């Protein structure tokens, strides 16, 4: 091929001038400013060294895939994000989804749970059970997983500030089922930095929050070895408006901060790095999304090997969960979302996802119904079994456009990480408002393009129709708050309150010192101390994070 390059370059110039030049069209650009060429040829990939930069699946730098046989050996985990109302209702939804062929669980908690308030806290009013399931104590977790064998499932929990407490509850539920922690598979999100920037469910200041995270790293490396101790999230930054490049760059910057914190806490990088996992957002731009995941795999491998000197190949390996883009759904003509979700789901698979949640078409309006969530699960199953995209590993590899875009994205992401390093790392960049500002700029630019019609959103700013009001949406029972408050009252009379007090006191002592927080949290949880009581002890010792906002 090499001897042909000059000839191909000449021919491309000729074609460009004599053939393409006779046609007029609008130039195309990515959201992050790269001009997309009308045609890519071997000339665009000639500088990419195949063995060094692309390589083989399951081998450094993992551009093509983290595992050698990928979907030939094992399909991705089909894991719809769900949970609402009471523990009982959520348990029913999980059983339904598993019956329908879902292969993993993903727990959505309500906002009071995510911020460490019990259902009877004044700030919980109106919020209980709304965006996820309400968990006040171990009793609720026992109900959520009632009849679900935890040694045969993998469970992902979207929980951040109080992640240690929910993990402790999960370990306690498993113990009651007679299952040891070494057998448990699953993930906690445990990614506080993006809560400060875009998601908002923070509790404690940066320092103690990082301590909680590294305590979990340490505890799990010893006792829960198969657990993914952190699920570093780009998803929410993308939802807040970040471009694909910013999504990966800011997530990797956060990840670098966590790895540094682990090392600073005295851990060996290869003891915790293999348990790092990720969640990203698979958006509308099909090829960009595929290239994004290929670039991320390659770059993370390089960061771990070259920057942190990790020597275990599992530390280099980028394994990710993704969810399709909630913000790409339209409230107008909601059935159009079925098509958007299908394309995004396909992009996630061509990008090499290990685990996937597909949004439901009614989610711009409400939480999904049983029917709508089943349709999005079926979308994954059709892609898995009917259309042949799982028959070979990384079928997009070698496409001139995909390889060129992968390279360009890797370069742009690297530039951003350098900039954040110069600012002193992710925590410092967040404190300066840099990451928030960059995301807001992208969000505003996008909105202006949509409003000017420069970006077509079918059914919303173009091809509109008069529509009747949507029917059959899911409504969360307004009584959930009252039900939870009643259960809390009963719990507080039934439990051994002296034991609760003594375990909370032990937790306070540990929080004031330097020992690992997991053991006293587990003891408190097992005594049925509530989530709010446990968080309050930590609030009193650690203080609370004060959010700021600039527009």
């Amino acid at each position, binding site marked *: 091929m090499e001897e042909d390059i000059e000839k191909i370059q000449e021919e491309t110039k000729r074609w460009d001038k004599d053939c393409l030049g006779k046609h007029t069209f609008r130039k195309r650009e990515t959201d992050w400013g790269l001009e997309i060429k009308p045609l890519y040829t071997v000339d665009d990939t000639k500088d990419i060294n195949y063995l060094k930069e692309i390589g083989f699946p399951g081998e450094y730098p993992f551009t093509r895939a983290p595992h050698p046989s990928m979907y030939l050996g094992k399909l991705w985990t089909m894991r719809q994000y769900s949970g609402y109302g009471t523990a009982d209702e959520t348990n029913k939804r999980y059983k339904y989804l598993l019956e329908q062929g879902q292969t993993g669980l993903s727990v959505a908690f309500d906002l009071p749970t995510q911020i460490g308030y019990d259902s009877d806290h004044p700030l919980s009013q109106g919020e209980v059970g709304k965006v996820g399931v309400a968990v006040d104590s171990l009793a609720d977790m026992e109900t959520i997983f009632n009849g679900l064998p935890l040694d045969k499932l993998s469970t992902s929990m979207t929980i951040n500030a109080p992640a240690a407490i929910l993990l402790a509850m999960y370990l306690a539920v498993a113990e009651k089922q007679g299952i040891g922690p070494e057998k448990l598979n699953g993930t906690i999100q445990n990614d506080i930095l993006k809560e400060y920037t875009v998601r908002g469910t923070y509790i404690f200041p940066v320092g103690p929050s990082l301590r909680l995270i590294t305590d979990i790293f340490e505890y799990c490396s010893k006792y829960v070895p198969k657990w993914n101790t952190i699920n570093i999230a780009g998803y929410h930054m993308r939802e807040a408006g970040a471009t694909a490049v910013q999504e990966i760059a800011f997530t990797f910057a956060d990840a670098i901060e966590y790895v540094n914190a682990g090392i600073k806490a005295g851990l060996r990088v290869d003891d915790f790095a293999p348990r790092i996992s990720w969640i990203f957002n698979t958006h509308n731009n099909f090829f960009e999304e595929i290239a994004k995941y290929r670039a991320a795999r390659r770059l993370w491998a390089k960061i771990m090997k070259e920057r942190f000197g990790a020597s275990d190949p599992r530390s280099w390996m980028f394994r990710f969960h993704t969810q399709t883009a909630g913000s790409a759904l339209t409230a107008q003509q909601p059935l159009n979302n079925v098509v958007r979700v299908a394309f995004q789901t396909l992009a996630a698979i061509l990008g090499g996802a290990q685990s996937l949640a597909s949004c439901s078409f009614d989610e711009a309006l409400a939480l999904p119904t049983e029917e709508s969530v089943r349709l999005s699960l079926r979308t994954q199953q059709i892609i898995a079994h009917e259309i042949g995209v799982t028959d070979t590993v990384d079928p997009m590899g070698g496409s001139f456009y995909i390889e060129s875009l992968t390279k360009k994205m890797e370069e742009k992401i690297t530039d951003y990480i350098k900039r954040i390093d110069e600012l002193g790392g992710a925590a410092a960049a967040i404190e300066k408002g840099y990451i928030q500002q960059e995301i807001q700029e992208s969000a505003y630019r996008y909105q202006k393009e949509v409003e000017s019609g420069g970006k077509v959103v079918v059914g919303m*700013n173009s091809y509109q129709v008069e529509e009747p009001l949507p029917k059959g949406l899911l409504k969360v029972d307004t009584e959930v708050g009252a039900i939870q408050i009643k259960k809390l009252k009963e719990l507080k009379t039934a439990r051994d309150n002296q034991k609760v007090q003594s375990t909370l006191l032990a937790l306070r002592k540990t929080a004031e010192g330097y020992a690992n927080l997991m053991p006293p949290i587990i003891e408190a949880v097992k005594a049925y101390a509530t989530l709010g009581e446990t968080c309050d002890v930590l609030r009193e010792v650690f203080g609370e994070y004060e959010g700021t906002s600039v527009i």
Partner: protein
Amino acid sequence: MNRDKRIRVLVAKPGLDGHDRGAKVIARALRDSGMEVIYTGIRQTPEQIVDAALQEDVDTILLSILSGAHGFLFPRIMELLKEKGLGDILVLGGGIIPEDDVPELKKLGISEIFGPGMSSQTLINYIRENLSQG
């Protein structure tokens, strides 16, 4: 109202919901259209929002919420506004609010509820028209 006076807007995020992409984009768009905009930041109680409205002497309050807690929080905010003698402020809601809930919210005195996909120009026009009538 005095035509020379710039319209003062409070963009507020009641409750525990952290989704503020929409609130921030709207705040920028209103500011670019010449209004004075104050953004409360996320996780505000009804009391904090009403206090901010009073202190900042705003003409309109935009409440953005996606968590589904509007059924509790919006009535509380409207009640506090009336208690403080701020019943004449133009109050608008946005976010993810089911159509079924809109009539009840309007009865409380919330002038309009805007859903996903609304253009910022629609909102700007709405505010200008409704304040000039008032």
